[in-house]
């Protein structure tokens, strides 16, 4: 209980710090980075002229990823560091992709499904990076596959 509370407190402090840092310093720089980097990438993959939404509020989704990864107990320093770098890069790529979804539904706001996926994206990345720790929560993680090739969970999934 005490440990869980400590994790929540650490998560909150890191989130406030990162959010403040993003709001005060990083947001404008990130917008400049996107404006520089995104157009040539879009051109390269055949979406020349796609609009770069450089100041979207959804770009802040890196904060929960970093906070979650930093407070997840039991990860090795190597996995945490490499996961942080690769995770942030993946989230950056997801921002580039999120911009392109605007082409599906031109208008003031982004389409609903990409928005939901974007909000949940840090969670996916965290699952991959923190999997050695999270596997403990999966009831089947430690069980060997059964003889019919299933992991024993298929019957319970809808």
């Amino acid at each position: 209980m005490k440990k869980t509370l400590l994790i929540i407190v650490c998560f909150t402090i890191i989130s406030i710090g990162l959010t403040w840092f993003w709001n005060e310093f990083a947001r404008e720089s990130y917008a400049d980075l996107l404006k520089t980097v995104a157009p040539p990438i879009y051109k390269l993959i055949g979406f020349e002229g796609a609009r770069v939404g450089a100041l979207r509020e959804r770009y802040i989704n890196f904060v929960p990823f970093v906070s979650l990864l930093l407070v997840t107990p039991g990860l090795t320093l190597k996995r945490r560091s490499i996961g942080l770098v690769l995770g942030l890069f993946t989230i950056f790529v997801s921002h580039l992709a999120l911009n392109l979804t605007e082409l599906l539904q031109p208008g003031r706001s982004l389409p609903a499904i990409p928005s939901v996926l974007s909000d949940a994206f840090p969670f996916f990345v965290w699952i991959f990076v923190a999997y050695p720790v999270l596997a403990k929560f999966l009831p089947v993680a430690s069980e060997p596959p059964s003889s019919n090739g299933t992991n024993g969970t298929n019957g319970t999934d809808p």
Partner: protein
Amino acid sequence: MSTAEKTPEPGHRLRNLRANPQLRYPVLMVAYLVVGGSLFKYGLENFADTVEAIDRITAIIVHHFIGLFTDLTTRRDAIVTLDGFAVAIIIECVGLLEMVIYSACVLAFPAPLRAKLWGVPLGCAAIFGFNVLRITTLLIVGRYQNDYFDFFHIYFWQATLIAMIVSVLYGWIKLFVHR
């Protein structure tokens, strides 16, 4: 052990990959998110009255919750005020997107169906509760520390959305899956 035993057949490899929870869970989650996101979008476009009712009900609950601590609160339709500072509650504020994400997390999780049937409504209720707290803190910040309102509204709570979902999910796993 023979070479044939060491190298699994492609079909077997595919089955193993599909059974791998590290891959299976996020893939299933994406599938549920696409379904949930589509339903959410359909609901927004076709059930305007229901959407307004949800906004209003949320406003009523927030108003009553704040009313437990102070008389300085009023409400009109989906607008709640605290000592003159007003917030309008719109559908993005009521936590439905968070509930969609949380429900996808629960449905994709390898747990008994019974646990999922309990987990989705109870978790959504918990997220709704968190959201009432979120709106309340926004009213307090807006009223007493107005300079920080945008910071909390646009950035901080957006950033903690995943934490809210992970906390409720963790509680569900502890209470219903690993009992």
